[in-house]
């Protein structure tokens, strides 16, 4: 039986991955691509476009202590996963009722049935779910993995 401190060390190493020489911001932010054979690909080690996307059965976002998952279980119309980010800038009202500006930094994961895309939008800073929404695949075909040739529509 493994000593408790050893288990804690393993968990810490898994989360911080000091061996990867990452910017601090990505030590607690990563995506996992779970393949059907049990293999897990880590976004801190591999670009998602290099993953055998047709074998992925689950995508997981880890941001700080928040975890968000999208899988293909119970989705008979499932075609493929989507995996992208949002950029830009937006304005919001702070706790003092003042308008402030901030950069939009969101990670998005979801799945498509070939017609619509079902998306989870996650705040990059906090890991909290911003919203879930549906968007037509026709306006975001570029975000389809290149190995999914029957849905992707590259320029």
């Amino acid at each position: 039986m493994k000593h408790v401190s050893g288990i804690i060390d393993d968990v810490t190493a898994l989360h911080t991955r000091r061996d990867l020489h990452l910017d601090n911001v990505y030590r607690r932010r990563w995506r996992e691509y779970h393949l059907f054979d049990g293999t897990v690909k880590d976004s801190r080690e591999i670009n998602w476009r290099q993953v055998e996307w047709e074998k992925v059965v689950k995508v997981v976002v880890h941001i700080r202590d928040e975890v968000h998952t999208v899988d293909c279980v119970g989705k008979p119309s499932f075609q493929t996963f989507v995996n992208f980010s949002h950029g830009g800038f937006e304005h919001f009202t702070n706790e003092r009722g003042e308008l402030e500006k901030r950069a939009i930094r969101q990670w998005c994961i979801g799945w498509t049935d070939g017609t619509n895309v079902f998306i989870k939008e996650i705040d990059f800073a906090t890991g909290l779910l911003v919203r879930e929404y549906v968007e037509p695949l026709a306006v975001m075909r570029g975000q389809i993995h290149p190995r999914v040739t029957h849905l992707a529509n590259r320029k």
Partner: protein
Amino acid sequence: MAEPTHRQRQFGLAEATTAVDTEAERKGALGTDAAVNMGEPPTGGSELDFGIIDISGGQANSVVVNSRIDWTADGGNTLVETFRVYLLAADNGFTGGSTVVNYETVSGADQGAPSATENYVANAVVGSYTWQAVPATDPASINLYPTDEGTSMVLSTTSDDALLFAMYVQVDAAEVTGTYKAADAGKEFRFTFKYAYS
């Protein structure tokens, strides 16, 4: 991967149609360029400026302003997509019932059969385009199109094209007068620009 780097530039109404009819031109430097940060806190007068609108004689319109957005560094990403601009209610201090910010995505003349855009017109006035109101909520779907009217642009260090759009403000006759900008209380005027990348 980091977020790609984008920039917003205003260009003059008098810019010739032949100056923006290729991808390289739309991304490059134009003679009438001015750096602008649409919605950024005003620094050095870099806001998109609609000028002075005189409503003493009733409802009035601002001048048309031209803007373009492109990407100068890809941050390790290969695609940008689903471009949209919107003006949240909280960012809009106008109270007049018919005060509206209108916009239109414009394309270069190399788009021979525009449908989602209109070909750029030099010295544009309100009657030059068929406008649409800037949405008051995130439309989630694209509402700014590149010239080829696709939904995405390839990133290879820079984007392969730029987004061009025209805007003007239609001001209600009873609108509260004053300068509307940034986060000024009761006179807020700030846009949101959002896009997807990977």
